[in-house]
């Protein structure tokens, strides 16, 4: 069987590498505008229309073959040899023609390492706008490799590139030498290579319009460095930055921008989330009515349908979050935001690039943890993952809403908004403190060396490509569903079994009750006798110091499937039978609830405030733990997160409840 040739696509960040990969593979990937964003590599066959039998790999963006982080090390090493794919037959290196000097460093290193290379020059249109062009024939002669210009947007030059790839695949394979990497690390080598590249660039960059050739020649004599008018950054970008990166207004604009994103995650998504919620409630009650009152009906309606609903309810928020962040990234603002916030975040051991993941954490910790891949420093990345569960994700919102509604007098509903904002403020402050403390114990907790750095290219501003941003938002949301969906669903089923089995419903007086009320009461009796209730009774000694009893304990356990399940499980356990307005009847039930052993009221101001604090801290989300395990590579960090956050939650709640009680707030 003939071996399928392997082509590796390599290039600096923002060199159009991923766009090229999308053209070849027909797969729709992200066009990155944020240096260092493609951390995983992608693999694909060429589309049939190109008629090339070869596998193409898209590796992460590289500035040089000198790895600067563990992720880069993996990317560089896999160029030389990949266990699954072997040595690449050919490497396609992309370089931004308007940044040709900086981007040729990688090309030169790859050629010198002994690879067979085809250079693909992109963004030639930007260079042309500066009245310049690249003499590709001359460049090809100097470098000794084939050079092709491609406009990735119009696909101009792709046919040419395909022809060159075919030609190069027919010849001898690459014979890379890994040892050459040591040489590339020398400062003298780097500076010398840059000098060589500058000489090459001076030869191959030519005026587009021969009329101004003379003027350019004169300039050339005066100052050879000015020859390359690619030296000037985009004028419009500089103008916009004068406003958006203004020393003072720049930061105010940033804060307003982030505030707007933050609120829109909630306000824009709210009606859609309600829609998903209503849809699944209707579906669940339809299923339970059609299938009758039996165990499989319950499994389908309360287990499977509600479980799926628990996954999908966050979809609108995640979609909106990705959409807004995608737009900001595509315009070029996101990199600037990371720069603006880097200083304060570096004080607590984080990085400017930690900011977006932290913001995403307010919607859902799972996409937030996935998005930490843009942080190249491993310690900062792990620390960011560590504190993300402290961002009050939207699953906690229904719990806060219920407890706050319980706390405030019904004639002063406006107070609720204030308390809610206060809760978010507290959670932000607490996460800052925790990051600071964890960072102090870096050696024993995170176990990574502190070699923090922040080098970020600020991309040229441009209009976002809405089609690309929309597609990426859908891709990312799909990834959330595929990653988190199965975990949440399986857990929901486990929790459902715990609250349903052993399906023990004692007889009770049914006189004068409607059919619906009987079904609800049966459910309530079943949960009171369930395994979950047994676990709840078992942990009652732990709940007692908090002024709470087994019923809240069961709801807290159920909340491990998804935090908002706390509310529905409270409704079950407090035997709320009114389907029309669960919250009002649940609040009444909570007002009347007594601690069974002592007869004291169960929900006091103290215990409710305590519970809010419990939810701010506690890591009650198994999906988060699973994703944290996957992204950090071991169980150490997720277990530390679970133990530290949940025990802190307990201790904090204990202190707050008893402090409030002792000063007479009850």
């Amino acid at each position: 069987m003939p071996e399928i040739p392997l082509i590796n696509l390599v290039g600096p960040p923002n060199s159009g590498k991923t766009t090229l990969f999308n053209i070849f593979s027909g797969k729709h990937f992200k066009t990155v505008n944020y240096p260092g964003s493609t951390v995983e590599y992608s693999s694909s066959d060429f589309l049939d229309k190109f008629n090339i039998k070869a596998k193409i790999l898209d590796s992460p963006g590289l500035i040089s073959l000198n790895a600067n982080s563990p992720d880069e090390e993996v990317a560089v090493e896999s160029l030389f040899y990949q266990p699954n794919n072997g040595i690449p037959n050919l490497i396609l290196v992309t370089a931004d023609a308007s940044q040709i000097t900086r981007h040729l460093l990688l090309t030169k290193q790859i050629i010198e390492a002994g690879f067979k290379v085809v250079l693909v020059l992109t963004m030639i249109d930007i260079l042309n706008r500066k009245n310049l062009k690249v003499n590709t024939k001359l460049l090809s002669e100097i470098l000794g490799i084939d050079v092709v210009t491609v406009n990735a947007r119009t696909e101009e030059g792709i046919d040419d590139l395909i022809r060159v790839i075919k030609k190069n695949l027919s010849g001898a394979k690459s014979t890379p030498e890994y040892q050459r990497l040591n040489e590339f690390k020398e400062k003298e080598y780097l500076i010398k290579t840059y000098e060589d590249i500058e000489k090459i660039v001076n030869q191959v960059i030519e005026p587009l319009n021969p009329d101004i050739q003379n003027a350019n020649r004169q300039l050339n004599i005066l100052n050879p460095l000015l020859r390359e008018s690619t030296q000037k950054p985009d004028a419009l970008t500089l103008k916009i930055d004068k406003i958006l990166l203004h020393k003072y207004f720049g930061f105010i604009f940033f804060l307003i921008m982030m505030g707007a994103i933050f609120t829109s995650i909630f306000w824009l998504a709210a009606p859609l989330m309600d829609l998903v919620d209503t849809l699944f409630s209707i579906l669940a009650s339809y299923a339970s009515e059609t299938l009758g009152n039996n165990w499989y009906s319950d499994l389908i309606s309360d287990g499977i349908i509600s479980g799926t609903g628990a996954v999908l309810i966050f979809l609108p928020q995640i979609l909106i979050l990705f959409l807004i962040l995608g737009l900001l990234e595509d315009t070029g603002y996101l990199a600037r935001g990371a720069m603006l916030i880097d200083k304060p975040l570096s004080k607590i051991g984080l990085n400017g690039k930690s900011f977006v993941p932290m913001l995403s954490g307010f919607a859902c910790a799972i996409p937030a943890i996935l998005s930490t891949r843009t942080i190249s420093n491993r310690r900062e990345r792990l620390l960011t993952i560590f504190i993300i569960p402290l961002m009050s994700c939207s699953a906690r919102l229904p719990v806060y809403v219920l407890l706050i509604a319980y706390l405030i007098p019904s004639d002063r509903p406006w107070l609720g908004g204030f308390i809610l904002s206060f809760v978010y403020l507290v959670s932000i402050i607490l996460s800052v403190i925790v990051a600071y403390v964890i960072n102090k114990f870096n050696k024993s907790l995170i176990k990574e060396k502190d070699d923090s750095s922040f080098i970020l290219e600020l991309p040229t501003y441009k209009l976002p490509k809405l089609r690309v941003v929309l597609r990426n938002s859908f891709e990312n949301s799909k990834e959330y569903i595929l990653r988190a969906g199965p975990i949440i669903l399986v857990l929901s089923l486990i929790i459902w079994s715990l609250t349903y089995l052993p399906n023990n419903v004692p007889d009770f007086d049914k006189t004068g009750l409607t059919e619906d009320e009987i079904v609800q009461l049966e459910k309530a009796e079943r949960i009171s006798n369930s395994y979950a209730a047994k676990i709840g009774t078992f942990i009652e000694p732990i709940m007692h110091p908090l002024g709470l009893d087994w019923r809240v304990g069961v709801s807290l356990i159920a909340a491990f499937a998804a935090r908002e399940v706390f509310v529905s499980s409270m409704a079950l356990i407090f035997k709320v039978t009114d389907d029309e307005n669960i919250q009002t009847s649940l609040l009444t039930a909570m007002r009347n609830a007594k601690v069974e052993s002592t007869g004291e009221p169960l929900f006091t101001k103290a215990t409710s405030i305590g519970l809010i604090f419990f939810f701010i801290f506690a890591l009650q989300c198994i999906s988060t733990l699973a994703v944290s395990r996957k992204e950090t590579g071991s169980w150490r960090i997720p277990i530390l997160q679970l133990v530290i956050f949940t025990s802190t939650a307990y201790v904090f709640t204990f202190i707050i409840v008893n402090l409030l009680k002792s000063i007479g707030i009850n």
Partner: protein
Amino acid sequence: MKKASELNFGEKGIIKDIITLNPSYKRIIEIGFTPGQEIQLVNTSIFNDPLTFSLRGTLIALRKNQADCIILN
């Protein structure tokens, strides 16, 4: 001996050398800060850190302690 971190807002300078003060000095060279290049400080942000330099037709943000590695003429 003037460092890039000591440039005033809008001020230009020619790089003389990159010193090994910060572990990331190699990356600083690789991204294009090489002797002979002209750089300009174009943004300082409210905290005076990181600093944004215009270099080789692009904008690069660096932390102040990294810009300390860049020695100017």
